[in-house]
């Protein structure tokens, strides 16, 4: 069985793995295409800046939420505007006399320890929309009341106080938070919702709580007297310190500062070693071999399906009849009665051999109808018992289907 084939010609050996040059050339199109898409995306982002969220009251922010307009106008008016992002810088810049300190803590970075440090530094402290915890920390006479809105729109407010900036503005149209005060001077009071501006005097220095924060924003500043209020409030002194707290104010040590500086590189190294290990173990030793396998058809499916049908429909009589026919067939074969033997012949032959009552045998083999599954199982057992009895009588061990050895062959040679 092993006549060796001729040595195959070497010509048929073709290297299918592409060379490095061919692989590069083949993937060049995609590499260039992907790189081009990345460059295009980068250019788009650089031009539009669309992904950055506009910072509210940002001094350099030109989006509607920013405050670049008011800052630029103040600069043009000859006021020195110092934009700072750290509390220490803000305090240093505000030390000189003739300073307005603007604080807009949009990200709620300052905590109860830091708020009080802002007091008593600048000549005029302007706080935009402080939260209640901030007011508590400052220990000043103001409480948050309610949002300053009229439905969804900005609310129109009249000055109604003696603060010069407010009086010049006469009326504003803004949104923000309303504040109530006991001793301070409430301007732009809307009644229940509170006032848009609260002027307080703390230790001889002026403190303004600006609830109508939207008057500073580029998008709102042109409305009503908004611009007048903003410029009047912030342009009072020759220097304006524009302070917006940043994460740099958080002095708690970060995780990076606590760990040794080699931890990150080691973690990266572990990741790279893992990648290398994945490549080591995962690299396929040549392509997967494909083989068409023939279908596998199980033959007992029909039988199992039919059995489930019998069981589900409760066809006890039909099932029992099948068992009876099988028993009769085996008995007829075992007693050599021939294929043409009728039921009566078989019953009388069995009665003769076993000595049982023919009528009872006829009942078992033909007439009895099982009323429930228990009777069916019992009748089936009685059929088996009858077959075993006959087998014992005639000495045919292979008659009974339960006889285990030898394995059933199903050979029907007759």
């Amino acid at each position: 069985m092993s006549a060796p084939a001729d040595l195959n010609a070497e010509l048929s050996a073709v290297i299918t793995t592409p060379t490095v040059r061919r692989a590069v050339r083949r993937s060049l199109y995609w590499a260039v295409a992907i790189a081009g898409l990345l460059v295009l995306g980068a250019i788009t982002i650089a031009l539009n800046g669309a992904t950055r969220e506009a910072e509210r009251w940002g001094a350099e922010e030109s989006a509607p939420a920013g405050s670049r307009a008011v800052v630029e106008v103040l600069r043009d008016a000859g006021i020195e505007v110092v934009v700072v992002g750290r509390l220490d810088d803000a305090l240093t810049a505000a030390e000189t006399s003739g300073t307005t300190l603007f604080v807009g803590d949009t990200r709620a970075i300052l905590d109860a320890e830091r708020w009080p440090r802002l007091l008593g530094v600048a000549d005029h402290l302007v706080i935009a929309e402080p939260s209640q915890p901030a007011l508590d920390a400052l220990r000043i006479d103001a409480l948050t009341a309610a949002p300053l809105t009229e439905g969804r729109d900005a609310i129109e407010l009249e000055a109604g106080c003696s603060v010069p900036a407010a009086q010049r503005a006469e009326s504003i149209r803004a949104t923000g938070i309303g504040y109530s005060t006991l001793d301070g001077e409430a301007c732009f009071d809307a009644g229940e919702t509170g006032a848009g501006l609260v002027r307080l005097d703390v230790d001889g220095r002026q403190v303004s709580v600006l609830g109508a924060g939207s008057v500073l924003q580029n998008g709102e500043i042109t409305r009503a007297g908004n611009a007048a209020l903003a410029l009047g409030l912030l342009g009072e002194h020759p220097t304006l310190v524009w302070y917006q707290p940043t994460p740099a104010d958080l002095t708690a040590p970060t995780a990076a500062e606590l760990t040794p500086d080699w931890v990150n590189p080691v973690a990266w190294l572990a990741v790279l070693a893992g990648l290398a290990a994945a490549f080591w173990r995962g690299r396929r030793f040549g392509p997967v071999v494909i083989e068409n396998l023939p279908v596998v058809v199980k033959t007992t499916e029909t039988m199992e399906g039919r059995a489930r049908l019998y069981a589900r429909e409760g066809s006890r009589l039909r099932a029992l009849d099948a068992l009876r026919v099988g028993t009769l067939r085996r008995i007829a074969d075992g007693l050599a009665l021939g294929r043409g033997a009728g039921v009566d012949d078989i019953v009388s032959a069995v009665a003769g051999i076993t000595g049982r009552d023919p009528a009872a045998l006829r009942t078992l083999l033909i007439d009895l109808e099982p009323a429930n599954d228990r009777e069916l199982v019992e009748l089936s057992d009685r059929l088996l018992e009858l077959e075993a009895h006959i087998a014992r009588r005639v000495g045919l061990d292979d008659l009974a289907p339960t006889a285990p050895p030898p394995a059933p062959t199903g050979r029907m040679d007759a």
Partner: protein
Amino acid sequence: MAVTGWFVLLVALGVVPVVALAPVASPALVLVGWLVLCTGLAGLDLALAASPRALRLQRQTDARVRLTETATATLFVTNPSRRPLRGAIRDAWEPSAGAAPSRQPLLVPPGERRAIVTRLTPWRRGERRTALVTVRSRGPLRLAERQVSIRLPGTITVLPEFAARKHLPSRLARLRELDGRTSVMVRGQGTEFDSLREYVRGDDVRSIDWRATARRSGGPGPDGRPGQTLMVRTWRPERDRHVVVVVDSGRTAAARIADETRLDTAFESTLLLSALADRAGDRVDVAVFDRRVRGRVQGARGADLLAKLVETMAPIDPELIETDYTAVPGLVRSMTTQRSLVVLCVPLESPGATRSLLAMLPQLTTRHLVLVAAVTDPALLEAAGERDDRAAVYRAAAAERALLDAERVAAAVRRLGGDVVSAAPLDLPPAVADRYLAYKAAGRL
């Protein structure tokens, strides 16, 4: 390319310089430097490895192997370069070719040739193929490997197992017993006169040839008295009969009974019958058929017959189409003109599925002796005897019903003039052979 475990270890060892040099250098810089060093070493290793592209490969494979036996597939690897080739090689045989080992270490010194031997123990009949050889060449630093796949097709034909050949010696002995037998009990029109010999005790008295006895009775007998030598005629089975085997390779032949498809059982039966009939001096023609003739062996004798049979059967798998039984009489007519034994290897299951077979059968039985060889499912018999609980009883009932159906179909075949042999897969080939011997002895061929 591929990397080795040593490369992974080398990368991981970078933790030592990164931590140790932390006081004097930035760990990130050390990390980058280490990675550059690793990739540089790996690149150097790749450059120094022998090129697997330069290899010359030759394949030498056994042309055919019988199922369950083992063949060898040898791959000759020549390294024409001036560097030694270290690495591994994989000959990508189909899974069912049972190739072992699937990948082997490879070391070919410069300018030399090595044989890589793969042992094939297929577990499926047919044509098993390999298309690719994949070679990895490791560099001297053992860090990286170059890998190429080379298309180098090879095939091996896996022949039917013919496990039934173990039954052949006993059947051949039976066949020899038929020769020179005097018995007239089995004598019929199919037996031929063989020779005359002296009567021995046990011979049938009806086979005494009185005329020959009278001719021999001239002289004195062994005890001096005349006329004591009786002569009997001996007979032998007729020779040069024709056996036609038609194997159904349609949808139902795909059914797997006792871990063997019907088609494989039919092939086993065909092989045993062919071997036996050929020795008995009969002509054997075989056709495998579903809607077209998938394989046909005609006019072969002796060792050539079996070789042609296994060669023809090897690549045939069951097709998932209904067999066109109406074309079978025409097929048989095209293979024989004289009266023959036609063996049909078809399933006899339910009356509905065999209707077209039964409709076609009279056309064959009028001219030929028809034997239908069908496989019965031992699982049915097992299920019929198992009645432990409610579900088992219903299963037993269904099994009995299936057996009854098969019996009804067999009875229908007999009524139409055919003959039926049905047995479990392992038992069917000897049963068919026995039936053939019975025909032979009875002179019915």
